[in-house]
């Protein structure tokens, strides 16, 4: 939705001061390639009948970013090298089924950065990969942030990875942001009961530490977003539920320095 694929019922998505849903078609077409996406499942996100070269070149061709074939060729080669699909001459004539999961995800990244975007939505880009491959993909993504100045929206359920890659974080529950702020601050000092429960339930790869940790248990399971509970959406599972939580949806408040939380516990009356 952030990338203009689906129209929202309400609200705006603002890119460089403009609402992308209010833009004229021509204007949108001009900036569209500056916003890109990397998907979770590299087995689903590449067309099995396209060669790697064509997969990566497709956004360039569709957006007519280069006029000559040689320019496109050089660009694609360069990008393939930067995602370490080397030598590119070997990889560019392959089909996705001839690649491993990690290589596929590299192709997907190459396709996303080939248009030199400012902003990339990365939807769980490593959750389908083996543990030994994840670090190298994360490293690649972080490298583009440093080299090209790309901004990422990194969507994940894996808080440990999020802390490794992220600067700021927003915690979502049933379609609402319940808490947001600097990532270290949020993890060390969570304020919303849901964030607290979430953080306490993440196991840590350190047997001594993780066995001592106390865990906040949540009741029940997340309800469907079709019929969310009234008031605060988290109240049926919240260990600190108050009367007001059932009736009214709490406002978002700034607790300190950009740390936002949406919970009655922190609203002083």
């Amino acid at each position, binding site marked *: 939705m952030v990338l203009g694929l689906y129209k929202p019922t309400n609200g705006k998505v603002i890119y460089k001061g403009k609402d992308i849903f209010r833009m004229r078609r021509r204007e949108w077409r001009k900036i569209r390639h500056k916003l890109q996406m990397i998907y*979770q499942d590299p087995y*689903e996100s590449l067309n099995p009948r396209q060669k790697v070269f064509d997969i990566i070149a497709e956004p360039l061709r*569709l957006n007519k970013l280069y006029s000559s074939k040689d320019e496109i060729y*050089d660009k694609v080669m360069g990008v393939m090298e930067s995602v370490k699909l080397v030598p590119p001459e070997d990889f560019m*004539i392959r089909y996705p089924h001839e690649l491993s999961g990690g290589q596929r995800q590299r192709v997907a990244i190459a396709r996303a950065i080939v248009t030199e975007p400012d902003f990339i939505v990365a939807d769980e880009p490593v959750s389908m990969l083996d543990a030994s491959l994840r670090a190298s993909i994360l490293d690649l993504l972080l490298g583009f942030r440093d080299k090209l100045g790309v901004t990422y929206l990194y969507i994940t359920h894996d808080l440990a990875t999020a802390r490794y890659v992220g600067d700021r974080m927003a915690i979502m529950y049933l379609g609402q942001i319940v808490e947001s702020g600097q990532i270290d601050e949020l993890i060390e000092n969570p304020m919303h009961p849901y964030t607290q429960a979430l953080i306490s339930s993440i196991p840590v790869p350190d047997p001594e530490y993780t066995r001592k940790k106390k865990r906040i248990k949540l009741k029940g399971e997340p309800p469907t977003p079709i019929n969310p509970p009234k008031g605060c959406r988290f109240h049926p599972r919240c260990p600190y539920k108050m009367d007001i939580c059932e009736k009214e949806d709490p406002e978002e408040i700034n607790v300190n320095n950009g740390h936002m939380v949406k919970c009655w516990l922190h609203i002083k009356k």
Partner: protein
Amino acid sequence: MTEVSMKNRKKMYGGRWRGVKEFLKVYRKNKLGMIGLILIIIYVFIAIFAPYITPYNPYEKTGKPFIPPSPEHIFGTDELGRDIFSLTIYGTRISLFVGILATLLSAVIGSAVGILSGYFGGLIDDLLMRITDLFLIIPGIPFLIVLSVILGSNIWNIITVIAIISWPSTARLVRSETLSLKSRTFIEAAKLAGATDTYILTRHILVNVLPLISASIILTITRAIILEAGLSFLGLGDPTKISWGTMLYFADRYGAMFSSNPYYIIIPGVALSVLGLAFVFVSYAVDEIVNPRLRTRRLR
């Protein structure tokens, strides 16, 4: 820009047939598939060179009626004294022609309807699928009988009529494949890159649907060949052409069963069944390669 890149570009496009080569490499390991393919090649060869293979002109009386097999007529003669062997050889032409052409026609209609219906969904889908369902309920042969009577008995009408009753099953299959492709993220990625519907339909959906349903299309050829024979057997075939079905029609009508030459009945049927079987084998082999149930995506 440079010479190097031009050279590499050639290499890249040189890889265009690699997919086909790879497919053949795997295909060659499938025994049934190879048997089927070789049989089909033999049939095609026979169909093309029929005049050079046949000992007699199949349209002419070359002996007494209903002669049992003899050195002159290896499968004997029919009720008019024509050579059964020569008739059967010529019959190959009609079966292959009708089978392949009718299947192509039905594949084109079926794929178009299926892709449009699956991709666009909504009202278009409802409408097209209702029409498809209507055609699916039509009982094939009774309908063919009526249509042949209306349109007359010539080979083009037979092809049209077979295509009309074969396309709905292709359409349903293509639709369900399109639906599952549509939900894959590479389609969304293409939209994000700015692809139009036409671009996605041709470059992303069609190229993926066709290999997946190729096995079932090949299977349709077998059904079409049998349908043509069935129609001809009912006496609704093209009277000017020799076909195995027509041969069986006359064999049945003139009591070949009680004559001294039962080969009149057996030979065309065997020719027909073996050709059908050849396509079934090929379809099976293609299915094993394109839709392997065993090779799971991630073998744990």
